[in-house]
């Protein structure tokens, strides 16, 4: 089966997630679709597997144009997708999950289904107990179940979205060897969606690289990793020179901390941050960098080790106590976590600053008006916060931060902001730094991290590596970080 994507375009609002993409997948070959977060990989694969229609462009199977209304349509045409978080029903057994979506009459033939399940699993070298509940399986086993199910329903092209996140090395080995066998012996087409360069090098024969919704490269493997990294992250500008600023006393001290992120555990993390320092936290989505920020804010428990702020352990302290110690945390979900949908700016300031039982409305409105002028927010004290634009919401969030801060913990502080707002936000943050605060921030944008950080902590597969010599790197620093994020050690 030969599958071709022709001029696929998909936009979300102003964002062109896919911009006239044309890719071709031949029978029996293993492809990689590479790109950093937001490059448009997932969108393209959702279009190919029938979850979303493209705005324009066509999908061709063996030269015939096909359109998919639903993922079931795509599977009938032989295209199956394995999601990063396997799309199964956790509260059903393996056998029930396998039977769901099979074409049969009212009364399922459990015995026949069980035999089919076991036969397909054996063919792939997987072992699956039909009576186990799916929620007691590991991610790796759930992937195996999904692959078995898709194959039994006649998938000829298998899309795997980040399949190696959260599975063991042994499961990865089993998965890769069965995928290779499927391609070589049965003529299956495999598409691996990934940003892990090692996986791509180990499995794939051809690579498509996306950046910013555009196809920027098509290479046959083996291709030097350096070249792929350059394609993925682009040629970024040299690191701007930084004005010298003095570092003060130690503010944050992290001693061999272990903490559990969504899928993995980050172990043995140690870090010392001094006043006037900016630390960038880099890593793929969900590698633990956001969890580390939350842990420093006392919002997430740590497994072992300790976190000291101004020499005091934060164990058992609430965020409110830390706030009084000069710590502030700003989440990336501005309206979800940072601001309160439905309250006005004045109400936000009253909530953040006023203590006591009665709200001093006059003072709150005056404070809001002062901050609006000072931070150049486009809005009035009585504007409901959700009516502001993203940039103005971010300004509000920064305006709400108390004055005498020691430690700022920021999750993707410029998410969704345009260039001007981004520059403004950093101007404010660096002013805080010059006043003696230490800043820790996460960002999916490596250029932002390289530009503003004094040191960078790279999170990858449960390890956190500190990069200190950004200025002395001979090569492009963003490229070096890209490699670390992709799992290549120093």
């Amino acid at each position, binding site marked *: 089966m030969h599958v071709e994507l022709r001029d696929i375009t998909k936009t979300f609002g102003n964002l062109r997630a896919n911009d006239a993409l044309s890719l071709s997948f031949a029978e029996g070959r293993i492809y990689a679709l590479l790109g950093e977060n937001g490059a448009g990989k997932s969108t393209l694969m*959702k279009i190919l597997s029938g*979850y*979303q*229609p493209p705005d324009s462009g066509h999908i061709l199977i063996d030269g015939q144009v096909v359109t998919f209304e*639903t*993922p*079931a349509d795509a*599977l009938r045409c032989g295209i199956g997708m394995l999601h990063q978080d396997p*799309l*199964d*029903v*956790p*509260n*059903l*057994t393996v056998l*029930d999950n396998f*039977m*769901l*979506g099979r074409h*049969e*009459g*009212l*009364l*399922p033939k459990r015995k026949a289904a069980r035999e089919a399940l076991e036969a397909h699993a054996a063919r792939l070298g997987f072992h699956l*107990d039909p*009576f*186990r*509940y799916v929620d007691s399986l590991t991610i790796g086993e759930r992937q195996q179940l999904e692959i078995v199910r898709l194959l039994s329903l006649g998938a000829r092209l298998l899309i795997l979205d980040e399949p190696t996140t959260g599975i063991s090395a042994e499961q990865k080995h089993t998965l890769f060897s069965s995928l290779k066998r499927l391609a070589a012996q049965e003529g299956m087409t495999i598409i691996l969606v990934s940003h892990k360069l090692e996986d791509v090098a180990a499995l794939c024969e051809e690579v498509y690289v996306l950046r910013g919704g555009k196809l920027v490269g098509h290479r046959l493997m083996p291709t030097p990793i350096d070249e792929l990294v350059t394609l993925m992250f682009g040629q970024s500008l040299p690191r701007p020179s930084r004005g010298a600023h003095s570092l003060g006393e130690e503010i944050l001290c992290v001693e061999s901390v272990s903490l559990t992120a969504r899928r993995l555990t980050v172990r043995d993390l140690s870090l010392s941050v001094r006043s006037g320092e900016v630390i960038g936290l880099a890593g793929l989505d969900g590698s633990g960098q956001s969890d580390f920020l939350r842990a420093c804010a006392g919002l997430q428990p740590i497994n072992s080790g300790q976190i000291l702020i101004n020499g005091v352990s934060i164990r058992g302290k609430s965020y409110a106590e830390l706030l009084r110690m000069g710590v502030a945390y700003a989440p990336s979900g501005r309206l979800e976590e940072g601001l309160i949908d439905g309250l006005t700016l004045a109400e936000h300031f009253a909530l953040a600053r006023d203590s006591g039982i009665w709200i001093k409305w006059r003072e709150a409105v005056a404070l809001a008006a002062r901050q609006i002028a000072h931070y150049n927010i486009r809005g009035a004290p009585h504007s409901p916060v959700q009516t502001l634009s993203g940039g103005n919401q971010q300004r509000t969030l920064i305006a709400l931060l108390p004055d005498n801060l020691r430690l700022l913990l920021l999750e993707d502080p410029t998410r969704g902001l345009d260039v001007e707002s981004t520059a403004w936000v950093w101007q404010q943050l660096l002013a805080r730094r010059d006043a003696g605060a230490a800043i820790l921030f996460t960002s999916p944008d490596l250029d932002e991290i390289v530009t503003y950080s004094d040191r960078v902590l790279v999170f990858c597969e449960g390890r956190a590596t500190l990069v200190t010599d950004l200025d002395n790197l001979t090569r492009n620093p963003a490229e070096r970080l890209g490699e670390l994020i992709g799992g290549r050690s120093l």
Partner: protein
Amino acid sequence: MDDVLVRTLADIVKVGAPIVLAAIGETLTERGGVVNLALDGSLVLSALAAFVVGTSTSSVIVGTLAGISVGSLIALIVAACSIELRLSQVAVGFVLTLLCRDLALFLGIPYRNAQVFPTTFLPIPVLKDIPVIGAIFFNQDLFTYLSFIAVAVAWWWLFRTKAGLTLRAVGERPQAAFARGVNVNRIRYLYTALGGSLVGLGGAAYTLGVLPTWSDTGIAGNGWIALAIVIFGGWHPLRVAFGVYLVAGLRTIVTSIQAQVPPQVVELLNALPWLLMLLTLFLVSGPYLDRLMKVLPPRLHPPIRTLLRARPPSALGTVFEQEGRS
């Protein structure tokens, strides 16, 4: 077994029938991820509709159909408000339940204790002659038989058919069901309407079977009991039926002894079912179930887990939206 006990048990089964029907209906609805909180008001309004139509046509069948129509119509309003308008199922259901109850009380004024609908017992030949069992289960009216059938068919449908598996998947993880080619919202409409018709049938069972007349009291409140029993029953038809008979049984006992005991005891006994339910929920949701599972062989896990489940369907009360489409 003595006659009094057999008669009491037969009575419990009969009195429990409307609640069994309503609770089984709600079980099916909630298994698909929709919570029909309008159940109580729906029960009262469909009871009135069944009574009015039943007495004016002198037909149990036509009256029952009227009750079923009202019940499914109200359920469809809940489903449509959730699926089409994305309103909160809880909010819509809550308002509807109050509205329907008050509407029924208002419209029912001319029919208050007006007459008694003639119920017909339908003893089942041969089966009714089985000692004890026959007298309890097979010498009943139409609605009681229907309640038995509802329990058995609901269990079989949920756990033995492909359609039941699909329904459970829709209530647990609609995205996964959708990926397997299921039209999630159509399934939700279907089972909400089906559940609503069973609630309507339960309403008809009151005014055409158990009471069998229209009265302001005696119906309202039972819908809430049915809702509570669905939770206690872990969304499992057999456990739900057991819960209903437990409550109905204690009520019957209380009614028969209330003349002889102080009122405090009566009230305590009335509260007993709820305490038992809390205790059961505590036992099945605590660590005890996990410990039990560790001892048992894996082959027995599916039926045990299904029977002792305490967790609601994961997608209960949520709206399903297909991403990337509007």
